């Protein structure tokens, strides 16, 4: 070892610092926000085989084939969530700031012929939002994470016959990321990475109605969508100016691939007033196994959340008492975590979840209003390994309230 080797004057520490953490407020596994309408939320979004509103563009576009006239809905989903981290060494717990978000949705459909229906959806199905205290133990893993997406989803549904309808759609998704993470403690300060990207995908759906209005089967597939943030900017703010030259503000890029989603569902209506439904989602979170963050002037940083393919089971019930246009709904969800163990981090403290859903709807003529509530209870999730997160346990709780107003013209 020579003096020249030993006394290096520059340190490229940027790579150590940046954690492109994934979203946390997400309701379904990973950072998927599956529940996009007040109607669906009330019955745990178990609607692949039973959706009967413009939001079918998202849940199962093939269902549009059975919708007449013109319909539209507008609404929003209010999400509030908070996480708590308990370090394994017995130190004090750390709570994230409470994140409150409103995710707007717009859906519309129109019949072109008796068999063709076009639809359009503008919605947020993936998102991020979490902020941790600036001095917490996992500051080098994540301080704040934000991913906003907006999907534009035109679709075309074909009613083949009274028992079968098919649909296909196109997804254009705009994503904007904004992540902040702490630089190594000896450097201090933080780095913020922001960028925007468009990604594209497609979706298909099928609806089979062996017994129309009594027994339906549905299935959808939504392709993965790569968001390549090639025009990102990194704002390094080391606490100690000695590191400013080695960590200048610079371009950066990263990519996140939104997962494929496969959904199947069944709806049964044992009585005219009671609808029961069951859905299963398979979400291919293996798209989220590794994220490379490249800087123009700093070494690459590779994150390894090691996302797993995961499933979600949904059970819903809807009771129409035929009383003043009111409809009551209830549901239950079991949602497997997409990220486990060593990949678990504060940007996405994912966990197995059990959700309880409640909802109420009101119909009056061509108008419809639905409100759904979802209590999302995250089972304790242990972060191990110490690379993507401090070692410890994450506990989270989230509430979703969805409100949708819809109208149809026939």
């Amino acid at each position: 070892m020579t003096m020249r080797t030993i006394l290096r004057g520059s340190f490229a520490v940027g790579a150590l610092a940046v954690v492109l953490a994934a979203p946390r407020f997400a309701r379904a596994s990973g950072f998927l926000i599956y529940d996009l309408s007040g109607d669906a939320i009330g019955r745990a979004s178990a609607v692949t085989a039973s959706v009967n509103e413009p939001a079918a563009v998202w849940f199962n576009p093939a269902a549009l084939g059975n919708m007449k006239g013109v319909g539209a809905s507008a609404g929003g989903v209010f999400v509030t969530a908070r996480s708590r981290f308990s370090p394994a060494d017995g130190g004090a717990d750390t709570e994230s700031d409470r994140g409150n978000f409103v995710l707007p949705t717009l859906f519309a459909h129109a019949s072109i012929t008796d068999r063709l229906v076009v639809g359009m959806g503008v919605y947020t199905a993936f998102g991020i939002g979490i902020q941790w205290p600036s001095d917490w133990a996992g500051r080098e893993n994540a301080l704040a994470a934000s991913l906003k997406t907006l999907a534009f989803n035109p679709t075309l549904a074909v009613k083949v016959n009274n028992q079968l309808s098919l649909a296909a759609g196109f997804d254009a998704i705009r994503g904007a990321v904004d992540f902040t993470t702490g630089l190594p403690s000896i450097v201090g300060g933080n780095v913020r990475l922001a960028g925007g990207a468009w990604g594209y995908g497609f979706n298909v759906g099928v609806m089979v109605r062996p017994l129309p209005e009594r027994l339906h089967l549905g299935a959808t597939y939504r392709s993965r969508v790569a968001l390549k943030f090639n025009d990102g900017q990194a704002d390094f703010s080391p606490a100690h100016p000695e590191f400013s030259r080695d960590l200048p503000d610079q371009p950066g890029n990263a990519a996140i691939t939104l997962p494929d989603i496969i959904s199947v569902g069944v709806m049964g209506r044992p009585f005219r007033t009671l609808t029961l439904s069951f859905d299963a989602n398979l979400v291919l979170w293996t798209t989220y196994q590794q994220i490379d963050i490249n800087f123009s002037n700093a070494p690459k940083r590779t994150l390894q959340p090691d996302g797993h393919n995961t499933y979600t089971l949904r059970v819903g019930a809807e009771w129409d008492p035929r009383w003043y246009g009111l409809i009551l709904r209830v549901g239950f969800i079991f949602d497997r975590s997409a990220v486990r163990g060593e990949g678990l981090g504060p940007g996405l403290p994912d966990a197995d979840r059990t959700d309880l859903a409640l909802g109420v709807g009101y119909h009056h003529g061509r108008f419809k209003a639905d409100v759904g509530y979802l209590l999302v209870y995250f089972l304790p999730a242990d972060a191990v390994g110490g690379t993507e997160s401090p070692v410890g346990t994450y506990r989270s709780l989230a509430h979703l309230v969805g409100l949708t107003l819809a109208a149809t013209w026939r």
Partner: protein
Amino acid sequence: MKRLVVTAAVALTAAASCVPTLPHDPTPEAMEFDPQSFPPRVPQPTSLIVNPTTKKIDFSLAGLTIPSDCTMATIISQAECEFDQYLQTLDGFPTVTPAQTPATADLDPATLTPQNVVAFAARAGTPVADLQIGFQTVGRFLTLRPKHWSVGEFYWAAVRGYANGVRATSGAEVVGVPTQFLLKQETPLTCGAATPDELDPKCPAYALLLQKQPDKAAASVFQLEQIRSDLQNLHAWEAIQAAGIPKEEVAVIWGFPTHSTSVAEVDPSPAAMIVPQMTAPNQIKIAVQGPVDPATVRSFVLKDHFGGVIVVDLTTLATMDLVNGLPHVEAEYRDGNIVITAAAPLPIGHQFGVFLTTDIHDPSGRSLSPSPVSKLLTLRAPLVTSTGKSTLSSVGDADASMLEVGRSQLATLFDNALLDQVIGLSRDALVYCFAFPVVAQP
């Protein structure tokens, strides 16, 4: 309804596609400390190349091995090799060595003030006054020097950076580099580990070094810790604070010793002008730093005695007049000077050479050390290339060219076997060498 949907969609798009505009912070300039670069960009002189065991300058500590036979030198020039061999005989740096520290940009001269650039004599316990501070744009070096450094001293030098310190000509703030930041730490960089095997990868400084060169991080952190603890234990920060710069404002700090042996200095550069003084038509004074045993100050007198003070009338000697070419002189040590008195006034217009040899000692019996300029004038290899470039990294082209004139002329003297035999005028025996014309009566 249609209008509503379109309006809402546009609004949603705008909201979702809004990418935050991040600020673009200005990048500061820095006082460099990068031994990895070639040539290394580090402050000089530096105690980092003083061997703690031998107490001598040792370039191998900087990864540079000086050949014992300079005619075999390949990586460095023969002249550089000869000069480095000389430096490696010293237990500190020559007292006329200017200190310099590199910067990443040209520095604003208006900010190169005694408040921002300081030196502290550790053994004397006082700040160094009357520093000459400048900036050398070739290579971007901040330079500082007193008239001369004292022998046997250890100096700390530092530059104030950050908000209140030196600035680049662009106006940019000048900061320290990460290495300097690590050296400022109050706690051990090794987090208490005694051996590389005990290092905890989470130890902050070690973790930082691990990122860049994992295979060398362990050795690096121990080396840096040695320097950090030296700075702390030798009270470097307190010294610089006493000189006026608080630790947090230090952009670069370094220390260096000067050699402990006495030296008859010579430095004809305009910044120093340390040259023999003619104090009478027949008298020359040579200033000596450090104590001298007066009994060893004896002149050379042809056919009489072989003293260590030799005066040569080079003009006369060129006519092969050995008797008049070696005029009769007396030498004595008086008030810090070697005073040479000739029997007759030195003839105007003649070129004289004054030489001191290793026969002159300090009271402890150690020979005087050669001064760098004297050494350069006695090198065997030329100081410039055929294109006029200096062959020594530490000597500029202009200085090398000026010295090369004298060196090449004196070389004929040193290469003269007869003179060597008669008066013992050999390169290895010289500690002082200077030639000058007698231009006027004082």
